[in-house]
Every structure is written in C-alpha cells, then in structure tokens.
C-alpha cells in the first residue's frame, strides 16, 4: 500500500467522515419516504429500498476505507485510543442500522443509526485533541470494543423505546406498545450481550464474573427492569400507563448505569471510573 496510505491520518478524516454522514442521511431520507400503504412487493417500494440500501452501504464503505487506511498507516489495529473507539462506534452503528433495515425493514431505523454515527463522527472531527487519549492497561483487551459497542447499540434502541413510552402516555394507539416491544427485545438482546461480555471479560481481567461493582449493579438493575417489562407484557399484566411508566423507569436506570453512577458517592472506587 505504501505511500498513499501513509498519508492517511486523522487529518484526512473529514474527507471520509462527512461523505459518510451525508450518504447515510440520504439513505435515511429515502427509506423514510417509503409509505406505509405501499405493498412490500410493489416496484415503487422495492426501488426505494434498493436506493436506500445503496446509500447506506456507500456510507459504510467510506468509513471502512478510512479504517483500513488508518490501520495500514499506523501499523497496528486502530482500537487503542478513545478517538479510534469512536470510529468503530460510528461504523458499527451504521452497520447495525443497515442490518436491521435489511432484516426487518423498519423504515425509521436508518435515520436513527445515522444520528448515532454522526454524533461520534462529529466528535472525532471537532475534538481531535482527544484522539490520542490513552487507554489504561485493563481496557486493552479484545473484549473492549464489542463490550462497549453492543451497549451503545442497545442504548440506542432502548432510547427509542423510551420515546415511544412517553408518547404512549398520551396516545391510545395500540401499535405504540407493539413497536415498543420490538425495540425492547432488540435492546434487551444487546444489553444481555453487553452484560455477559462484561462478565466474561471481568473474569479474565479481575478474576470474577461478577463483583457488584456499581456499574455492574446498575447494569443488572437496568436489565432486570426491562426483564420485568417483558414478563408483564408476556403475562398480560399491568395497565398501559403502568407499562409506559415502567419503560421510563427502566430508561432512567439505564442513564444511571451509563453516566449517573459516576456521581454516586458509593461508586468512587468503581473499576469503571475511567469513562468519567
């Protein structure tokens, strides 16, 4: 690869990041334009879908190209600094969005993953001084990226469920709860991946799957709270309002786990304080 890729550093990121954001946004707009009344086999629908998927794939390819160039330029996998981690977040967010769109055809999912990826891409463009922030030794593990990425993916779905629950308090449309269920199931699956990958990693790094570290405890609280929601739905218990309130409560617990825990006096000796 030689000289060309040697020139690719973070300074060139803007030439990959911005096109990626624009392409992804274009895909999101096209997929949103599809109408609910269109039959999924209609030519009009399939054409829109193909265009949306092409835009989303091109966006993904732009980021992938940057990752490959950076990788060869650095002579090491770009998984070390916080900036590099954010690069992967954006990539996986776009990937997950495209995957979900292909699999379940939710037309809003591409806008969602676009927003998520854009936030991380923009931080990398406008806050380059934190690219090279160091990672403490325990974080240098193959578990780091999947552990954090699946959590980010999960948080984004559960955030969507939270918005629906807020809406659900004021509307009586039935499909709001059904959509919330779908989001909670996807979010819950990834929450489980995150929590269990954390447990496996903790066993390797500190010797125990579980040690009631404040962040772990709040992750469990969040997990059990969504678990309660799923079982109340399955078992046909709870009024619509109480179910929405439970979703809102669960999302507050999630915030507690994500960043709130850093402000708890009881969490000062947590092993997770690095991300303060």
């Amino acid at each position: 690869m030689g000289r060309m890729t040697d020139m690719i550093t973070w300074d060139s990121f803007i030439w990959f990041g911005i096109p990626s954001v624009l392409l992804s946004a274009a895909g999101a707009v096209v997929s949103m334009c599809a109408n609910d009344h269109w039959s999924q086999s209609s030519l009009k629908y399939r054409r829109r879908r193909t265009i949306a998927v092409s835009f989303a794939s091109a966006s993904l390819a732009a980021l992938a190209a940057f990752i490959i160039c950076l990788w060869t330029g650095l002579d090491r996998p770009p998984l070390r600094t916080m900036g590099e981690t954010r690069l992967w977040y954006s990539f996986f967010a776009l990937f997950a969005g495209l995957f979900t769109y292909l699999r379940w055809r939710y037309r809003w999912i591409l806008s969602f993953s676009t927003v998520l990826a854009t936030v991380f891409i923009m931080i990398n463009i406008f806050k380059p001084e934190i690219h090279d922030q160091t990672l403490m030794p325990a974080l240098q593990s193959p578990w780091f990226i999947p552990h954090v990425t699946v959590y980010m993916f999960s948080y984004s779905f559960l955030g969507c469920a939270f918005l629906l629950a807020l809406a659900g308090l004021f509307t009586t449309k039935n499909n709001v709860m059904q959509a919330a269920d779908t989001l909670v199931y996807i979010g819950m699956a990834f929450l489980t991946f995150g929590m269990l990958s954390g447990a496996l990693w903790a066993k390797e790094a500190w010797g125990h799957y579980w040690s009631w570290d404040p962040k772990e405890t709040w992750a469990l609280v969040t997990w059990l709270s969504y678990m309660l929601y799923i079982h109340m739905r399955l078992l046909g218990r709870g009024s619509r309002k109480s179910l929405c309130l439970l979703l809102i409560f669960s999302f507050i617990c999630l915030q507690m786990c994500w960043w709130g825990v850093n402000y708890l006096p009881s969490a000062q000796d947590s092993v997770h304080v690095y991300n303060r």
Partner: protein
Amino acid sequence: MPYIILLVCLALALVLQILTGGFPVLFFSFPLNIILAALWLGGMIWLWKNSRKSIFVEFMLSRGATLWAVGLFLLSSLIIGFSGWRHFASSWIFMVVLLYFQTVLLFVIFRGWRSATATGARLGSVRWRFLLNHAGILIAVSSAFWGAPDSETLRLQAVKDMPVKEAFRMDGTSAWLPYEVQLVEFTVDTYENGMPSMFEAAVLIDSEEVTLRVNEPYSRSFGEDIYLTGYDSMAGSDSQYCIIQVVKEPWKYSALVGIIMMLAGAFLLFAGGPQRRYGEDD
C-alpha cells in the same frame, strides 16, 4: 396465602440478618453446598412429579410468582445500587430472594420443557429460546449461589529476592499457598504522557516460569487462576514487587455454560422478536 409465606420468609431473613450480621457463606462449603443443592433439586423434582396440584407448585407457576421473582431481584439490586452496600449480596434477605428466584425458574423450566415435548413435536425456535434463556440464567445464578462458599480470592506481594507462600484473603486474614511465588522480572510500558499502557511480570510459580499480564491470567489447576493485579505505581518499571491474585472458583465452568446459553438465548431474542401475548399461545 403464598405471598404471606414469602413475606414471612423475608421477615425471618431480616431478623436473622440483624441477629447474626450476615449469611455464614463459608459454613456451606463443599460438600455441604452440593448436598443441599441436590436435596433442593431432588425435592423440587419430586414435587413436580408427585404433587403438581399442590398450592406450592401452583403458586410457583403463577404469573404473580414470576413477577415477584423478577421484582424482588430488581429491588435487591436497587438497594445495592443506591447504597453501594455490597454485603447485601451476602445477606440472609438476598439469599431468600435468590433461592425463591431459582425455585420459580426451575418450575417454569419444568413446565416449559413438558409443553415443548408433550406433543412429540420438535422444539420450535420459541421454545429453544425460552429454554436457553431460562435454563441459562438458572445455571448462571445457581453457580454463583451454590458455588460462593467454595470460591476464594487471595492476594500476595511477589518480590525478587525470595519466594513467598503467604497470601491474604480479602478480609485481611492470612492463608498459606501450597506452592511458592517469586518475581523474576517486571516491566511497564508507558505512553508519552507517562501513563502506563501495559505491564507484565515474569514470575516463578512452583519453579515454573510464567508471564502474567493484565487480561492474561495463568490457569494453574482446575478452577484456579493466577492474575497480575498491581505493582508499585510510583516506581513504575523499577517496582520491586507486584501484586498477584489467586482466584479459586471451581464453579466457574458451570457459570460459563449458563452464560453461553444466555448469549444464545439473547441472540434468538434478537432474531425472533416479540411473540404472541399470554392467552393467545401456550
């Protein structure tokens, strides 16, 4: 009525907690934990086979019992989350909550298994998902619950000039290892700003030289792993000692099985999405 019994059990646990100041975990070390676990499992299977119509079994299979099981576990985690009081996890109250949680799970699994196999039909993906998720969490929680008395964490300070056998438990009491540990060489790599990026230690464990790194423990024997957890951070690479942690956790393998089952179940949760509501199915 069953709820009153559950509340009475919790109240009793609270009284015991106040009187004894904590659940005597170590009292239940091997083989007592295995015996009690077998009695519990056997008793529940017997009840399932022979007295399915009893109040006990019917309650354990009721919707309320499930929601209370998740709810009580949630409440306990919230208590630990807000107070930071990790000892609650080894309190009498939490033991009652966990035992109840496991019992409900066990009966729900029995029923799920029967309804999956009674018709002679092949297990559908929904049933697989149900069984993997429920049995997975039961195995993981049970491994932690019944295995806790057999787990031990020891730390020792390894130095260069002499082998060390004395280690310390988390409560500060000392314990003797059946082997010696001696530091051979210790290195720290740092970033430009002086923060450590990686540290590793070559140590002699029972005259065998092994390299320990963060995230790379040395597996010494069944259920026993040795970790490098710290060093003299002021001295950096000149550190004259490093902190070695020995973790004995013979039940870690079954916990791993439970975790893998839950991961598979979570994947099916993602792939399958929500199922039909109560009453429409099952």
